[in-house]
């Protein structure tokens, strides 16, 4: 489960961002050349005065966007210096590509980055592998006939989406720490004598992180598919039924194919976000035992940059990450254009 990089921290949950992208796709498609031409003509007729006046109304907001999203790009220059905040940029030594060379030349650094990349990709791929679960959830929930039951399930399963990762960690702690509920129950049942270490271990970290992601996001992720199912033309089902299709045939030949476009768009976008896991989840779950396998790129940048004070190194890594992410996004967009005839960005 990934988050989009937002320059200002509180990234929305991944589902939200994925929806955004879909929305963008839809919006961008609307702006056909013909419509654009028409609007240009309209604009000329309306006269420049009014249109400039309207623009002036939004200028303060455009300034905010520039300051918080575009202006920080200038900071990439820090990756070429040995930046010391106390000295300022002019006082810091210019080191050229030293940080980038360091990334690939020192064996310890290479090993560390390698492990971080491995963690990042492993957790991302597990996230992609589990991305089919909300789809299945939605299809089967749609088979439930009692509306009150459907609504209750939806309300209860979307609840975890609305709590912070800190609280998720608190829940994990109270249930799975060595004095937590699960160990207590197992102990009382005589199944274990030593508490099992669910949290203070480097084993299965990728898997447990994925499972927490599923716990938090499953119900919420299903909403978009439930919406899409509601939008399927009912006559498709009716005619299939007349032809004698059973429940599973309806799913297989109608529901799933109808949901595929939505699923594919979300899948492609998660590929574009391979390197962006966000850091909050991994930050709260990290400890001395699991540090090695939980450190994803976003957390690594935080750990060496803010905690470890290697500002220039962290900038260099963050920069590479952003560039690769944009490249991935463009690639995926190109694939989508080739395959589906429409772009997703």
């Amino acid at each position, binding site marked *: 489960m990934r988050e989009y990089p937002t320059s200002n921290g509180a990234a929305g949950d991944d589902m939200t961002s994925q929806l955004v992208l879909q929305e963008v796709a839809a919006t961008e498609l609307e702006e056909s050349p013909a419509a654009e031409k028409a609007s240009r003509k309209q604009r000329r007729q309306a006269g420049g005065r009014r249109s400039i006046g309207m623009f002036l109304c939004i200028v303060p*907001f*455009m300034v905010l966007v520039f300051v918080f999203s575009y202006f*920080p790009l200038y900071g990439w220059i820090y990756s070429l210096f040995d930046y010391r905040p106390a000295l300022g940029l002019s006082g810091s030594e210019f080191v050229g590509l030293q940080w980038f060379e360091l990334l690939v030349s020192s064996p310890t650094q290479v090993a560390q980055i390698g492990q971080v990349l491995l963690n990042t990709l492993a957790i991302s791929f597990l996230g992609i592998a589990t991305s089919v679960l909300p789809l299945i959830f939605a299809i089967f929930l749609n088979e439930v006939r009692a509306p009150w039951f459907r609504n209750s399930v939806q309300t209860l399963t979307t609840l975890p989406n609305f709590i912070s990762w800190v609280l998720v960690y*608190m829940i994990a702690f109270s249930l799975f720490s060595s004095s937590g509920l699960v160990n207590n129950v197992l102990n009382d049942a005589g199944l274990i004598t030593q508490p099992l270490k669910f949290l203070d271990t480097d084993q299965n970290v990728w898997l447990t992180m994925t499972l927490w992601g599923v716990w938090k996001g499953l*119900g919420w992720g299903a909403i978009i598919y439930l*919406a899409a199912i509601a939008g399927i033309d009912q006559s498709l089902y009716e005619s299939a039924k007349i032809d004698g299709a059973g429940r599973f045939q309806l799913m297989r030949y109608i529901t799933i194919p109808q949901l595929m476009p939505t699923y594919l768009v979300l899948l492609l976008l998660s590929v574009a976000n391979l390197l962006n896991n966000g*850091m*909050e989840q991994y930050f709260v779950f990290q400890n001395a035992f699991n540090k090695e396998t939980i450190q994803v790129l976003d957390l690594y940048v935080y750990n060496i940059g803010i905690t470890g004070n290697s500002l220039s190194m962290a900038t260099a890594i963050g920069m590479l990450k952003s560039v690769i992410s944009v490249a991935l996004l463009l690639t995926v967009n190109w694939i989508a254009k080739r395959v589906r005839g429409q772009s997703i960005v």
Partner: protein
Amino acid sequence: MSNTTFGVRRRGGGDIIFAITNYSVFIALAFLCAYPFYFLIINSISANDVSALGQVRWLPVDVHLENYSQVLQLNGLPMAAIVSIARTAIGTLAAVLASAFLGFMFSQSKMWGRQFWYRFVIITMYFSAGLIPVFIVMKTLGLTNNFWVYVVPFIVQPFFIILVKTYVEAMPESLQEAAEMDGANIVQIFFRIFLPNMTPILATVAIFSAVAQWNSFQDTLIYVTDQSLYTLQYLLYMFINQANSLAQAAQNSGGNLSGIITAATTQTPTSIRMTVSVLVVLPIIFIYPLFQRFFVKGIMLGAVKG
């Protein structure tokens, strides 16, 4: 809506087995999602010596509310609650108004450079300069250790703007034309005509923004060292890690604060963690079901279209 609600259905044995399996799986999933919250709540109101042993599992034991009155007196908690409430209220108001206004303005084909500026905003969803450059900009602007770091960077949010723009574009054009005939200017049209007619989408945006603000943890972690600006989430994180010493402090001051202390009301690490968690999650548990139908609708709008 459901494909099973119309027509005559045969109810064979297979159907019944399917229904039972389906219902069971969903009951299990709902339980897995709901029980942890229930567990926190019953532990926060049970006798502290029992909850510390992990013996409170299905029903609360010796219910008391002493934990809440004691935890609320913990150092920094009232201040953190004020900060969290303030950032949620101010941040949400700012984000909703800005999204409404920008979403509306970007639907105006007459605006100079509309396409360009719309893209200028939307593209920011796809890239980030990275943690350190953003941190340095925040620091340069004096936003570190400043309450406004919780609000100002979140005023313009592309996702919300897209939602509002899509919504406005689905509204009848005659609304605006009529107002223009009457000589209203664009700002008047926005405030008098459009804003009052956008309630569903603004409710969606408001709940998204409020939840994000209330849950935000990372920005305190990165930009704030001043204790008076800590949020509840950040304090909760610290409490998880320091619950032992906090329990000690609460025990020491407990005598003055609350009269007789018994084993059942003496603070333990467990009681402090559970109680603070409940305080953090309770607003969400109460508010979110009320808004659920709004944002489900808001999402459907986007999803069906895409």
